């Protein structure tokens, strides 16, 4: 199956708890260091405490506009790569506004291979952009 690779730190933000938990477990099986947050507050907290490298963000979160969540995460963690996951095919104006700054976006339901690949790509992009020191230990022997 999948090569167990370096512990890429991933944060999953989605209000569907079942989805988030299962996806977390599946990504864990694939060797990622995954955390799940089901509310906006949890997401910010988790982002601050565990400093993820890649965030999978659902644009439709109760209590706060997805674009606002995106902006806040980006501003507090400028290095993080965010992959937008949306339940709707069409994006609203604000989502389009920020989509340029996101690494990519996926439409639900997502295939695990696609998610894993995107995370990998996002992590590689981040790694190539950042100097060696900025990377977490253990991320080195990827590939």
């Amino acid at each position, binding site marked *: 199956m999948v090569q167990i690779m370096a512990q890429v730190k991933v944060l999953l933000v989605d209000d569907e708890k*079942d*989805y988030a938990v299962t996806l977390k*477990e*599946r990504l864990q099986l694939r060797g990622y260091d995954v955390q799940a947050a089901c509310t906006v507050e949890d997401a910010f907290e988790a982002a601050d405490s565990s400093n993820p490298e890649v965030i999978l963000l659902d644009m439709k979160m109760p209590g*706060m506009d997805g674009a606002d969540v995106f902006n806040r995460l980006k501003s507090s963690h400028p290095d993080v790569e965010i992959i937008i996951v949306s339940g709707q095919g069409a994006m609203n104006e604000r989502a389009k506004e920020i989509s340029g700054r996101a690494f990519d976006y996926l439409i639900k*339901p997502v295939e*695990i291979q696609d998610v894993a690949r995107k995370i990998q790509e996002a992590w590689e992009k981040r790694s190539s952009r950042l100097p060696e020191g900025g990377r977490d230990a253990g991320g080195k022997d990827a590939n």
Partner: protein
Amino acid sequence: MAQSAKRYWNMKVYITALMVSITLSLLVVTLVVSHVWLKNFLREETRSQLSWQMENTKNNVEYFVKVKLSALKYISSQYSSEELLNHETLYKCFTAFKRDFGDVVDLGVIDADGVMRSYVGPYNLSGNDYSNHEWFQKTVVEDTYVSDVFTGYRAIPHFAIAVKKPSPNGKGFIVIRATIDMATLQNLITAVRLKEKDDVFIISQKGVMQTPSRIYGSVLGKYPMAVPVNQPGVNIMDLDQPYGSGGIRGYAYIKNTPWILVAVIMSRADAIIGRIFLKELLSVFILSLLIIFAATIRMAHVMVNWIKEADRKRENALTEIEHSSKLASIGRLAAGVAHEINNPLSIINQNAGLIKDILEMSCESMNVEKFHAFIGEMKNKDKFIQLSNGILDAVNRCRTITHRLLGFARRMDVTYELIDLNETIIEVIGFLEKETIFRSIQLVKDFAPNLPAITTDKGQLQQVLLNLVNNAIDAVDRGGSIEVSTKQKNDTTVVIIIRDDGPGIDPDILDHIFEPFFTTKERGKGTGLGLSISYGIIKKLSGIINVESTPRKGTVFTVELPVKDAQHYKERPNGANYGSG
């Protein structure tokens, strides 16, 4: 359908009645005005004609008398008293007189004592004494005289024309007298054209009838009216009652005679109007009536057909708009529904994926030891049951959504049914609840319990409610609140109130919000049809939709619906499609 046919029929009748009454009244006004005008014209005409005829007659009589008087004067100047007293000479004079002027009955010479000394004529008047007769005395005083009509010795009404001839020596005189029958005088005045009821006659200045009158009796009778004042020319006045209104009386003093010509025209000049109207105008009137009727009915027919056509076009356009609005609201739903369904699909996807992962991993060689424990921990019965339940829950969620959607789509057709209003609203809100949660909008439901079930078109009502709640969601800011409440107004009416605390609607705009194509949303965001269609639907459901708004405070939409749609029971609305749902 029958009702609209009746409506058009009524419209036709109404237009026809209106047009006919307008044209008829105009026609009648024209008739009345022309009648009055004609009447006045004819009266004026009668007056001037009478005046003219009387003037002529008066002149004729004057001329007649003048000629006779001149002849007498001529005789008086040409012959001496002796000659005139001679019967032979007098006879010659009389024959010449009669030959040249006619009309004279006799010729006589009277001496200063008033005794008829010489006489030529049909009566035996020689030796008669006239000294007491008025005409003789007047002639003596005035030299020439025209007498009133009198009977005298001969007992036949006549009048005398006399000339005094003084003797050459200055002492004494004789009087030459000619008499003329009253009938001659009467003939003179018949030149005035008369009708059956009219009358023309001569009276003396003393008020004695000089010629017979149809109204006032025979000759020498008393003229019962006041003798008119002497005025030159012909005078015409309106006849007093009881001689009939509309009649006229004319009189003229005849110069150099004691007479007054009087004419009474009783026949009403306007009497002929009736005949004219009957004879000539009636046919024209009836003809124009027929034309008016025909034209009006034709016109009403054409106009109503235009209206019918316009109504039909409008109805078609409305149906089209309604259809496109339905499509638009379906489109809007689709985005929401996609999200709603994609979430449980994702759960199913991931749960099934995890099960597969676990099973596949167990079959594979576990080359990484540290994950072995992790797999082992996951690979137990509870984990699979948990994942399966997740899948089943997600499927249930999808089913709820698809069922609701199907129900909504089915009710796009017009169909009346008994519905629970509160449940209907909950179904609608169900579509939009997610959106309110995402935008942190508080959605308050305040439903009156025990509302009666109402008979209405559920699908259409839901379309309206969806539109109103959607508008409310669009209006309020993040964190705002929307309240949807129901209550019973009275036995026959229930009310749905949708209140938001958005920015409100500008009072200038408020009057227009139910107009088609009126929108305040950005281009492309709204069709401007939602509220106008909602308005149309609620009207069709025999309800009332109202809006109240306070700027910066919010907007309240109120929908009143009848418990039993009276229109539905009376007659099913046009295009109602029963049983197809």
